């Protein structure tokens, strides 16, 4: 059964310097509050893993928490660039950022392999692209039946997965619905897991389309209402598109970002 604790305690307990950390949520249910808590606790040398870095990782990168980024699409959705990500890659500020770059299909399959206890996944991917030339974790494998050559990517098994969900019950069973992304796979692939939730309830009434993560497959649950803001939690909140636009102005400028960073500490 998952333990239910405060967010600060959960992050202190589960996230260590040098860890690989996957915070997932495909536009929906992004664990933003947990990301801020990792910044507050001053973690360093993290390998950040996430399909779409979004604001949550732009902040961590700008705050100097990350050594490496494993990802597939690094933009501010509907707005433009992730400026802290770009500044790290283009100018090495606040420090150099190593990249391990895939496509969405590759990343999703890496989580599937990780969740499945397999060392790699097979896909039809990367056809004709330059990605295999810059990403060492793209290889090929030959079908033992047809002789066809396919792409292979290694499993992702992060040290910690952090996701946000709508609800958990007191035994730590977690329920999320709407666009469910790769959250189940990330939690099952990780060595340790933290789920922040909008609310802890006595009973999880069934919801159409919901994914349920049993409490025995989750390490820690923390109640963090609004923990996905400015992304959203279907049934609880709307995406705050203005905040995504505001982030463009804050993150574009090192001084403005540094002031923002002071403000959250």
């Amino acid at each position: 059964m998952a333990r239910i604790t405060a967010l600060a305690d959960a992050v202190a307990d589960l996230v260590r310097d040098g860890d690989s950390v996957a915070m997932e949520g495909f536009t929906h249910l992004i664990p933003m509050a947990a990301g801020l808590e990792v910044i507050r606790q001053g973690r360093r040398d993290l390998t950040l893993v996430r399909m779409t870095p979004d604001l949550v990782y732009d902040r961590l990168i700008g705050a100097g928490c990350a050594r490496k980024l494993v990802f597939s699409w690094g933009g501010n959705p509907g707005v433009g660039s992730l400026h802290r990500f770009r500044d790290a890659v283009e100018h090495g500020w606040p420090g150099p950022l190593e990249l391990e770059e895939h496509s969405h299909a590759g990343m999703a399959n890496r989580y599937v392999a990780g969740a499945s206890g397999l060392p790699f996944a097979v896909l039809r991917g990367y056809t004709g692209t330059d990605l295999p030339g810059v990403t060492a974790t793209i290889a090929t494998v030959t079908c033992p039946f047809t002789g066809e050559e396919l792409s292979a990517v290694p499993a992702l098994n992060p040290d910690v997965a952090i996701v946000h969900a709508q609800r958990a019950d007191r035994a730590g069973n977690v329920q999320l619905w709407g666009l469910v992304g790769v959250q189940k796979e990330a939690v099952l692939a990780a060595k340790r897991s933290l789920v922040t939730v909008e609310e802890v309830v006595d009973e999880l009434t069934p919801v159409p389309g919901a994914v349920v993560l049993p409490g025995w497959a989750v390490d820690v649950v923390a109640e963090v209402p609004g923990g996905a803001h400015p992304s959203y939690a279907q049934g609880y909140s709307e995406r705050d598109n203005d905040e995504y636009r505001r982030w463009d102005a804050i993150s574009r400028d090192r001084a403005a970002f540094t002031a923002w960073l002071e403000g959250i500490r």
Partner: protein
Amino acid sequence: MTVSAARALAGAITCFVGIGLPSTAANLARRTHSPDLVLIYESGALGAKPGHLPASIGDGVLAETADAVVGVAEVFNYWLQPGRIGVGFLGAAQLDRSGAINTTVVGDYHAPGVRLPGAGGAPEIASGCREVFVVLRHTPRALVERVDFVTTRGRGPSLVITDLGELRPEGGELVLTALHPGVDLARAKAMTGWELRVAPDLAVTPAPTGDELSALRALKAATG
């Protein structure tokens, strides 16, 4: 450009939609000539029927109006990869003469002038869909002789729609096959970063109809 892109979807049954202009065009197609067009978003919404334009690919309206919502791995593995989807609709930062798309870097990968967002779903959309359309603004920086980085190649676009006209592949390169009404051929050539070949039967696209323009206005007005 949006109207042309929407028209290009006439006859399509299923469309894998990127956010931005492709999403606007696909939703416009649903509101005009193709009410049954099935929109598939990489966020997992199959058959989304948004009443307003989603701001992002993960907008809640996509899940709420979809026939089915599936995980991201499933949308790529069960739905895109086997070739079930007719048209893939992509944007591009750079597109070259050969049809290769770059959304990764301007300049050298290891010391980029501009770091772009990266691949997202595009490499597999371009190889998994039966046909690929690309929409982008027509500038010499966008339509280049050779992309700095091949993010996406797949089977290559069968149609490129710009704000100046349309290009189609012919003998291994993209050639101009149509101009929008009032666009000068010399301007299209000047705005292309390679020596643009022109199809012998260069067409002019029909002007947007009143119905198309009002549907587009209504769609944009409903955007949250």
